[in-house]
């Protein structure tokens, strides 16, 4: 498989605290990769560093063969990457509908509004209310939905199932599978192990700001012991 995203030797800092100590990973075109790790090991930071939201970083990040390090933040999305943050980032001054329409489409082939509403009927029902008046789970749906519209090639999802009802988690699983059929690439950070095991092709395990291990989904059961050690699953 052709690598779409390639990260090597990525270091990142928040002010004086050094969080990432040389992260290496690749994500192939059309692949769905999950990043596992305990709280605070730097999963979110990895995604933010790839996006360029964390600017204090060193190392190499290439996307579709192009260097991303020097690209200004507002041009990164136009290369075809979408980011769904952990804290969701719904805008209170915009209605649900405006929130949905906010990110500009960066390429052809995104979902239409109708498809999105079909996928998340709650959003349709509450489309005129203020974005942050949605329930926690609804906000999560909105955060994912708004990226689906833009036609990106790759999504970075930070704990997309947090706080979601099991039915919705299932539905998101299905959505991800559908997206994968369409050729979407996903890098996922997840605590919900069961969910991750259903959608991911491959896992990276993070520890102390580094990648501590890597394995395909087929080896999952064999690796359970190790996971137990590192994650306490």
């Amino acid at each position: 498989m052709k690598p779409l995203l390639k990260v090597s030797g990525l270091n990142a800092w928040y002010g004086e605290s050094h969080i990432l100590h040389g992260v290496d990973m690749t994500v192939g075109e059309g692949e769905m990769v999950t990043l596992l790790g305990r709280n605070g090991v730097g999963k979110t930071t990895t995604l933010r560093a790839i996006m360029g939201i964390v600017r204090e970083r060193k190392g190499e990040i290439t996307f579709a063969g192009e260097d991303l390090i020097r690209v200004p933040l507002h041009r990164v999305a136009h290369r075809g990457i979408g980011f769904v943050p952990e804290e969701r980032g719904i805008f209170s001054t915009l209605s649900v509908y405006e929130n949905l329409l906010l990110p500009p489409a960066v390429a052809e082939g995104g979902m239409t509004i109708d498809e999105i509403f079909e996928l998340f009927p709650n959003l349709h029902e509450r489309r005129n209310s203020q974005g942050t008046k949605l329930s926690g789970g609804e906000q999560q749906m909105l955060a994912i939905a708004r990226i689906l519209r833009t036609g990106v090639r790759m999504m970075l999802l930070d704990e997309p199932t947090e706080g979601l009802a099991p039915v919705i988690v299932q539905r998101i699983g299905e959505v991800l599978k559908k997206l994968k059929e369409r050729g979407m690439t996903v890098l996922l950070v997840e605590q919900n192990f069961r969910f991750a095991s259903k959608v991911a092709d491959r896992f990276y395990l993070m520890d102390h700001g580094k990648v501590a291990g890597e394995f395909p989904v087929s080896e999952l059961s064999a690796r359970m012991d190790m996971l137990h050690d590192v994650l306490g699953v």
Partner: protein
Amino acid sequence: MVLSARGLRRDFGGFTAVKDVDLDVHHARVHALIGPNGAGKTTVFNLLTKFLQPTDGTITLLGEDITNTAPDKVARMGLVRSFQISAVFPHLTVLDNVRVALQRPNGLATQFWKPLSALDTLNGKAEQLIRAVGLEKERNAVAADLSYGRKRVLEIATTLALDPKVLLLDEPMAGMGHEDVGMVAEIIREVARERAVLMVEHNLSVVATLCHHVTVLQRGEILAEGDYATVSEDPRVRTAYMGTEEA
């Protein structure tokens, strides 16, 4: 029965988020409030703690009608909540976060004439709470620097510091690693021996093992009630909330 609500209702503009909800929370029991996203769980919490004023209905806490009481008063009466999106004092250390919570119950909140060292009497209790949630390494770290999961744990510690009679926990395990989930579950179980706990949680295995009683909310109305086994058998609950998965 320590906390009960009758005919609770809340409208937002034309939208009814909570409709005719009756709820009874009992001493020494863990009561789960579950339901699909947007069902109105957090809103019920907000109504019970009086962060929102109900459009209709009454709330009774420990035999007193609190339908028109201010939220801080409700907290002082012994009903304390945690928040779905974590709420800590970001620039205070972990220790100070817990001490602030301890100040009022220990009568050390309004003394502007006493030195800060007066608060040192709270250290013992604070350390104990910090140890209980496994934050002793981060004791002197500033809360803002904690990772998300650790912040949630800290929030539970501050909530416990108030020694509340009724605890309302809004998704206490969300965003926590597996290890912490186990630990927090254990804490809740421990706490509930002498208190009433009402919690919102999407992690069904936690609900299954921890909760004595489950109320399922859907579109602001109660869909089903009972112990976990009964509720999870209910086909309406399965389609509306649980999906086909097993806990």
